[in-house]
């Protein structure tokens, strides 16, 4: 357990990290049209200042001893009754520090990119307001020092996600997708709510310090229950099976939103939650195993969906599910995996943001068409977009020396440390990643031009390409930087613990095997989609392809199991309420006093006299009763 340090110096500004974008959001959303002109720039500047503040905090933190890097700032007593007491309090430690850096730096780049991407949207002020709200909520999520306050951030990012998925509300599909995301996430919230309740009745507190400090005294059954409930919460926010169905629909939102919220930051909140709660999962082996199982299932589901979708954003969304699956597996592996879960989360945050922004740049060129069957041969026309997209692709595929190689390889290695089966799964999924990413690059940038007639592809403006270049640089070097210069294991070890395990296969051989599998997947993708002509309409496809296109029937399963029964029950109860409950009330009223007869009388205009006579009658009854009782 780390010592809690009072937040002094720059760390006393933790609240400001949240307050700045929150204020920005409030000014933009409440200020109305008068902020139209300068609002977006204000929004961008709050995030840039946040990023600078975060870097300053990092520098200060590095100057402290490894055990003295947890800073705690109690602002005031928030919710209290009886023995329940929760503070409005923030905590910055090594784990939240890396999240703050990811959120603010990637957030700043995406804000800047959006200046270009959304420049023609009439509602762009609102867009930046929502985006700022998101950053504020996400920072609250990672800076809260207790679960209840974290819940506020947790739901806040969900709200921002809801608002931004449904940003183009006039599209019924967007509005439906937003609602779906929120409701599925509410299922996860049930898990989080209950986990918090179990914590309180067990430990008498819901602060990280108190809960993690006394896990040793709780029974394994209790900790398993907490772990599984937290896992349910994580499944909702991180689109893991069985709560995955909202993420692909969420691509209805503007592309920068997909990059920031539905790839780089919010969807990784589940991984944060599990990693943050490491003390619980370390003591609850079954819950940790469940985490791994969920991660493996989602890793494959996402990868398979990613292979079949022709919509570039949905294919990337499948990939996001799959990559978060990797992180969840790593988090479920315990102390051998936590640091690598976060490591992959950081590199993924950068290269996936790069991929989405690249996809946005392509869409910008193709008149917002997302169908890759209508792309092709774009590499010469969009050099920067192509170059950065390729770098990010190599990174996500795990090709050395790009960032994704180091983080994914660490997870594969850690997986083999615990179980060969899980290890083999991660290698296979890496092969599928190779396939779908190659397919995406081939369909978009190579082959023949299959554009719609009115498309005139062009490179995007500098305000969009510069963030792409910066992200591509990150996708190249961040992995090495974190591993060799930043020592991510030792950095995070005081918070999440770290153990080095042993693998029977020599490390280099494992690396080579993984790489070979990835290259095989990539080669198949290349042969199928770059060598052969890509048909403009999708071929019928085999059973698996069709299932993958239908997102493995996730929506249909939800409909059959939950949605339809709920509406049936609802319809039945509406009928029951009218016919029986209310029917009983009205018929007994009629039986007693002839309500219907009186109604007729009432309608002749004696309202006042009638009502007063009712009351008068009641008072008479009172008096009579009093007299009878008293005599």
């Amino acid at each position, binding site marked *: 357990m780390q010592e809690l340090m009072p937040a002094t110096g720059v760390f006393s500004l933790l609240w400001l990290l949240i307050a700045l974008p929150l204020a920005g959001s409030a000014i933009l959303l409440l200020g109305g049209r008068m902020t139209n002109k300068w609002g977006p720039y204000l929004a961008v500047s709050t995030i840039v200042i946040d990023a600078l503040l975060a870097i300053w905090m990092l520098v200060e933190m590095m100057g402290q001893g490894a055990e003295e890097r947890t800073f705690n700032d109690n602002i*005031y*007593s*928030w*919710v*209290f*009754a*009886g*023995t*329940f*007491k929760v503070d409005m309090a923030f905590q910055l430690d090594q784990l939240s520090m890396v999240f703050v850096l990811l959120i603010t730096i990637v957030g700043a780049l995406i804000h800047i990119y959006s200046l270009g991407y959304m420049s023609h949207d009439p509602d762009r002020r609102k867009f930046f307001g929502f985006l700022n709200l998101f950053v504020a909520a996400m920072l609250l999520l990672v800076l809260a020092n207790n679960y*209840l306050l974290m*819940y506020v951030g*947790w*739901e806040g990012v969900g*709200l921002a996600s809801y608002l931004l998925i449904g940003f183009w*509300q*006039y*599209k019924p599909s967007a*509005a439906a997708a937003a*609602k779906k995301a929120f*409701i599925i996430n*509410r299922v996860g*919230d*049930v898990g989080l*709510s*209950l986990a918090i*309740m*179990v914590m309180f*009745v*067990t*430990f*008498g507190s819901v602060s990280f310090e*108190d809960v993690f400090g*006394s896990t040793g*005294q*709780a029974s394994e059954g*209790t900790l398993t229950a907490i772990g599984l409930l937290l896992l349910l919460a994580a499944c909702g926010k991180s689109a893991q099976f069985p709560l995955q169905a909202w993420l692909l629909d969420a691509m209805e939102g503007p592309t920068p939103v997909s990059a920031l919220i539905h790839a780089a930051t919010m969807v990784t909140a589940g991984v944060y939650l599990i990693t943050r709660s490491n003390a619980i999962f370390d003591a609850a082996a079954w819950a940790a195993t469940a985490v791994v199982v969920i991660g493996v299932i989602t890793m494959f589901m996402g990868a398979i969906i990613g292979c079949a979708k022709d919509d570039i954003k949905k294919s990337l969304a499948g990939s996001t599910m799959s990559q978060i699956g990797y992180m969840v597996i790593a988090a479920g592996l315990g102390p051998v995996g936590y640091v690598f879960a976060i490591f992959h989360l950081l590199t993924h945050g950068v290269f996936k943001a790069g991929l989405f922004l690249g996809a946005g740049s392509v869409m910008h060129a193709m008149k917002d068409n997302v169908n890759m069957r209508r792309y092709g041969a774009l590499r010469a026309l969009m050099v920067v977009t192509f170059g950065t997209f390729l770098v990010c692709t190599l990174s996500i595929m795990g090709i050395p020396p790009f960032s994704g190689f180091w983080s994914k390889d660490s997870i594969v290695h850690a997986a083999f440390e615990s179980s060969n089966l899980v290890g083999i799964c991660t290698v296979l999924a890496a092969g599928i990643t190779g396939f779908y990413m190659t397919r995406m690059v081939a369909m978009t940038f190579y082959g023949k031009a299959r554009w719609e007639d009115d498309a005139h592809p062009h490179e995007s403006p500098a305000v969009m390409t510069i963030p792409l270049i910066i992200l591509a640089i990150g996708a190249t070097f961040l992995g090495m930087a974190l591993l060799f210069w930043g020592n991510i294991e030792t950095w995070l070890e005081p918070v999440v613990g770290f153990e080095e395990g042993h693998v029977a296969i020599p490390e280099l051989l494992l690396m080579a095997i993984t790489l070979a599998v990835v290259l095989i997947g990539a080669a198949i993708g290349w042969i199928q989609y770059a060598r052969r002509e890509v048909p403009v309409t999708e071929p019928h496809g085999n059973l698996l392809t069709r299932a993958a296109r239908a997102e493995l029937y996730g929506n249909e399963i939800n409909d059959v199991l939950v949605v339809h029964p*709920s509406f049936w029950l609802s*319809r039945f*109860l*509406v009928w029951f*309420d009218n016919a029986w409950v209310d029917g009983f*009330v*009205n018929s007994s*009223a009629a039986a007693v006093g002839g*309500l219907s007869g009186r*109604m007729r009388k*009432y*309608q002749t205009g004696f*309202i006042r006299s009638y*009502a007063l006579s*009712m*009351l008068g009658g*009641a008072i008479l*009854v*009172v008096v009579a*009763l*009093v007299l009878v*009782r*008293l005599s």
Partner: protein
Amino acid sequence: MTFVNDFPWLTVLALIPLVGSFVVVLLPKSMPQLAKQVALAISLLVLALTIVIALRFDGSSELPFQFIEYHEWIPAFGITYSLGIDGIGLVLIALSAILVPLTIVAGWNDVEEPNSESVGSVKGYFALILALETLMIGVFAATDVFLFYVCFEAMLIPVYFMIGRYGGPNRSYAAMKFLIYSLLGGLFMLASMIGLFVVSGQITGVGTFNWFQLVGLDIDPTTQKLLFLGFFFAFAIKAPLWPFHTWLPDAASAAKPGTAVLLIGVLDKVGTFGMIRYCLPIFPAASEFYAPLIIGMALVGIFYGAFVALGQNDMKRLFAYSSMSHFGFIVLGIFVFTTIGISGSVVYMVAHGLSTAAIFLTAGFLMQRRRGSSLISDYSGVNKPAPVLAGFFLFAALSSLALPGLVSFIGEFMVLLGTFQRYMWVGGIATLGIVITAAYVLRVYQKSMTGSVSEGLASIKDLGKREISVLVPIAALTIFLGLYPAPVLNVVNPAVETVMSIIGQTDPPPTVGLTSTSSEGTQP
């Protein structure tokens, strides 16, 4: 024992709107505008005085009740005119005092001079609102059961006229149903009250209606069980608790938005307030006896209301059923007998008052733009022509689904936590309600506000200054108390701890570790 407070704060507070009501009635009929202005001024005066009282209220005081007034009234029957407020009464009076002026401003143009559609005069409507405010203050401030009962029953009169004379097409049926249903409940309560008087006479030799004397009585459990039912039945109808709810959707959909706000936002709270103030402390043994049954009804109500709301095609009925579901939560929190649960219920009452006001008033503003239709299918894509209205509608929806960060979350989470603390499975099941709430609330938002703009809506005006000025204070309070609920908790918690100690209940301690440092204010 006549104890006279230095200044009769509560009496004055209650009298101001009553006097105002008479003034409004006496104004000439030809000056409807003046009637509105006078009514608004009076309600603001009440609000100002309420703020003064709230500031003078000492949250850390040992005295559970403050601003006590005590006068003999009908000594022969032990009836006293006695007033006093604890933290619970204070926050509910404050809620009323806040909502009344907002309702007046919101309903500024809702009432027209009598014509084919309505029969009441303009000044009459505003006079009734003020008269109602007097009675609302009365029920929350009374510390004599008889006085409480008088206010409780008298409240029916203004509401009856507000629905019956100023409501929509179905107003006569709805008003009558409301009146008869409430009177029925009231009669049972009256019978119990008289029984209570007799029992107190048997125990102490002198029969009384005074709350302070009734609370200490050691009534034998069998009698308690009988007398409890009369009170509880009246409160369950008022709240309303499943299955005594069917008057509410009719009343809410026939009433003007402002009437619906006062009806659901404040008057229905009298039911749950009554449970905390009368059922629990006077009949502790009976409360414990019936708790499993009531918890069951509350649990059914949460889901029943939510699922029926999911299937509604009418906005007003939808929100009425949604309120019924929310009242399930409030009642649940009361009858689990934990400090967190009961405190949570009180916070929930305040939050629900605010969210009800937000949703009914916003929906009312919307309906006004389409000749009063409350059919959801008549609205689509409102966000396009009226983004501010849609924004407030969404805010109200989020407040209703208890979004963390808003005060409704504090109330709901505390209720669920308090329940979970006592009955794990009940708490766990009730928590599932948050999913269905989100489903019906976001469904109505999606259907009415998003998508393509429906015919006839393209040219509607967005909210005007008057309308915005009504909604902004509600939204601001909802957010402020969500982030900083201390002003409410500071006064409510001590009152709840008093209730807990009167009923002899203690909170279950945590199962491991941490020794609690804060005292619970409960007897071992």
